[in-house]
C-alpha cells in the first residue's frame, strides 16, 4: 500500500470517528450556549445511546428504525430528567456548582448502567453488513458511510432548526443574551430544558452509530465526553460549525497520530490538543481573539 493510500485510509477513518466527536461536541455547545455550564454527563448520553440500542434492537429484537427512535427518545428523556431534576432544583446556580452536579450525574448514570447492563462490553451489528466498500482503492466500512450520512442529516436538520424555526431562533436568542431573551418573552426555562433534551438526543445518535465500530460499555462515556469537549473547544466553543469542524479535525488528527506515530498514546493526543488549544488559543480554530481581557 502506498503511503498516500495509507494516509487516505487514516483520514477516512479519522473522519468517521470525527463525525461522532462532532455530534458530541454539538451537544456540549448546545448546553453551554443555553446555560453557560459544561455538561459532564454528555459522554454518558452517548454511552446510554449504545446501551439502549442494544436493549431495544438486540435483546428485544425490535425493528432497527423503531429501536433507533426509541433509543433517542429514551436518552433525550434522561437529559430532560437531568435538567428538571438536579439542575433545576439546585440551591445555588453558580456555574461551578452546576458543573459538579453534572459530574455527579455522570457518575450516577455510570453506576446505574453498571447495575442494569453489567460491566461487559456490548456491541451492535453494523447497519448494513461488514463487507468493506472500495473507494479510490481505500477500504471503507459501510458503517462509516452510515456515520457520515447520519451526521450530515443531523447537522442539516439542526441547521434548519436553528435558522428557520421559531424555537431554534429562540434558543439562539437565549444563547446570545439570556436577559434580552427573557425581556422579549422567550421562556428561557423551557429553552434550557430543550437544550438538555436535544443534547441527550444527539448523544444517543452518536452512541448508536458508533457502537457497531467501537462497542460500548459502562465506562466509555468519560473518554468520549472528554474528547467531544476537546473537539468543541478546538473548533470554537459554542458554535455549531466550530463543533463540526473541531470534531472532524480531532478525529483526523487522532487517526493520523495513531497510524503514523503511535497507537498506544492515541487517546492522550486528544487531551494534548485540548491543553494546547486552551493554553494558546482558547477561542478555538474558528474563534476570534482572546477569551478574556484583563
Amino acid at each position: 500500500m502506498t503511503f498516500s493510500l495509507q494516509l487516505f485510509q487514516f483520514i477516512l477513518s479519522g473522519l468517521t470517528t470525527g463525525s461522532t466527536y462532532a455530534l458530541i461536541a454539538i451537544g456540549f455547545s448546545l448546553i453551554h450556549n443555553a446555560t453557560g455550564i459544561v455538561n459532564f454527563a454528555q459522554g454518558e448520553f452517548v454511552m446510554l445511546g449504545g446501551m439502549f440500542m442494544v436493549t431495544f434492537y438486540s435483546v428485544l429484537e425490535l425493528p432497527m428504525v423503531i429501536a433507533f427512535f426509541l433509543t433517542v427518545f429514551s436518552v433525550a428523556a434522561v437529559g430532560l430528567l437531568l435538567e428538571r431534576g438536579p439542575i433545576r432544583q439546585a440551591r445555588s446556580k453558580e456555574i461551578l456548582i452546576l458543573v459538579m452536579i453534572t459530574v455527579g450525574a455522570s457518575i450516577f448514570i455510570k453506576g446505574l448502567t453498571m447495575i442494569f447492563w453489567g460491566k461487559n462490553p456490548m456491541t451492535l451489528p453494523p447497519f448494513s453488513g461488514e463487507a468493506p466498500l472500495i473507494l479510490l482503492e481505500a477500504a471503507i466500512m459501510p458503517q462509516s458511510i452510515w456515520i457520515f450520512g447520519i451526521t450530515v442529516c443531523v447537522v442539516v436538520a439542526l441547521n434548519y432548526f436553528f435558522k428557520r424555526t421559531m424555537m431554534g431562533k429562540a434558543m439562539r436568542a437565549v444563547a446570545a443574551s439570556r436577559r434580552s431573551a427573557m425581556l422579549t418573552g422567550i421562556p428561557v426555562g423551557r429553552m434550557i430544558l430543550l437544550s438538555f433534551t436535544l443534547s441527550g438526543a444527539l448523544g444517543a445518535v452518536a452512541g448508536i452509530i458508533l457502537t457497531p465500530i467501537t462497542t460500548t460499555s459502562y465506562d466509555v462515556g468519560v473518554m468520549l465526553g472528554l474528547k467531544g469537549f476537546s473537539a468543541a473547544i478546538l473548533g470554537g466553543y459554542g458554535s455549531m460549525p466550530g463543533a463540526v469542524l473541531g470534531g472532524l479535525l480531532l478525529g483526523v488528527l487522532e487517526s493520523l497520530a495513531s497510524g503514523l506515530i503511535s497507537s498506544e498514546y492515541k487517546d492522550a493526543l486528544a487531551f494534548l490538543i485540548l491543553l494546547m488549544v486552551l493554553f494558546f488559543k482558547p477561542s478555538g480554530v474558528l474563534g476570534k481573539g482572546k477569551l478574556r481581557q484583563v
Partner: protein
Amino acid sequence: MEKKNKIYLLIYAFIILILPIFLSNNYYLMVLNVAALNIIVVIGLNLLTGYAGQISLGHAAFFGLGAYLSAIFTAAFHFPVWPTMMIAMFITGIVAYVIAIPTLKLEGHYLVMATLGFNVIVYIIMIQLDSVTGGPSGFAGIPRLQIGGFIFNSDRRIYYLFWAVSFGVLLLSLNLIRSRVGRALAALSHNEIAAKCSGIDTETYKINIFVISAVLTSLAGSLYAHYITFISPGTFSIFYSIQVVTMVLVGGMGSLWGSIFGAVLLTLLPEFLHSVKEYNVLIYGLVLMVIMVFFPQGLFPGILEVFGQRKKGER
C-alpha cells in the same frame, strides 16, 4: 493561633491517639490509614480550591506521580526511601509549576477541563510506559517505610505515622490561612480585581498554592506506595480526582476542619458499601449530586448551621 482552634487541635490529637486502642480489627486501621492520606490531599486541595478559588480535577495525577516516582526509584534503583520521597515531591512541584502557569490563566470550567486533561494524559502515560511503570498490571515490590531499624510493617505503626503527618499538615495549613498569605488567598478568590489593586500578586500566589497542593498530594502518594507496597494506574484515574474534590465540597470550601470531616466520611463510605460493591459508583454519584444540589456550601457547614454554630465571619 486562636484559642478555639488550639482547643480543637488538642481534642483532635487526643482522639487520634486513643482511637487505635479501641480498634482490634486491622481492617479498620487500614481504612483510617487511607483516610489520613486522603486528609493530606484534601487539605492541600482545599487551600487551592476553597481559599484560592481554583478548582482542580487533576490531583490524582500528582498523587500518582508521588507514588510512581517513589516506587520506581526505591524498588528498581534502591534509592533510600525518605530522600526519594523528598525528590518526588520536588519533581512533582516542578511539574505542577509548569502546568500551573498556563492553566491558572484560564477561568472556571476551562481551568477544570485543563486539569482533567492533564490527569488523563498522565494516566495514559502510566499505563503505556509499561517498561518503567509496569503498565496496567501495576508495580509491586515497593519497600516499606522505616526509620533506622524500625520498620513500619504493621497497620498500627503506619496509623501513628500517617496521622502524625496529617496532623502536621493540618497545623501548617491552619497557620497559613491565619497569616498574611492566607488573607491574600482569601481576598483573591473573592474579588480578584480588588485584590490586585490592593497590591496582591494574584498570579504568583495562585501558582504557589497550586504547587503546594500538588506537593502535599505527592507526599500522600509516596506514603501510599510504601504502605500498600503495590500500585496500579487504576488508583490514579480521574475518579480519584473527583473523589477528593467531592471531599472538599462535602467539607465546605475553605473549611479545613470540614475537609477532615469530608475526607473521613467519604473514605469510610465506600468501605461500608463493600458488600454491595457495584453500588459504590452509583452511591458516590448520588451523594455528590445530593450535596451539590442541597448543600452547595458544603455538608459540614450545613450540619453546623443546623446546630447554630455558624458565625458571622465564617467562610
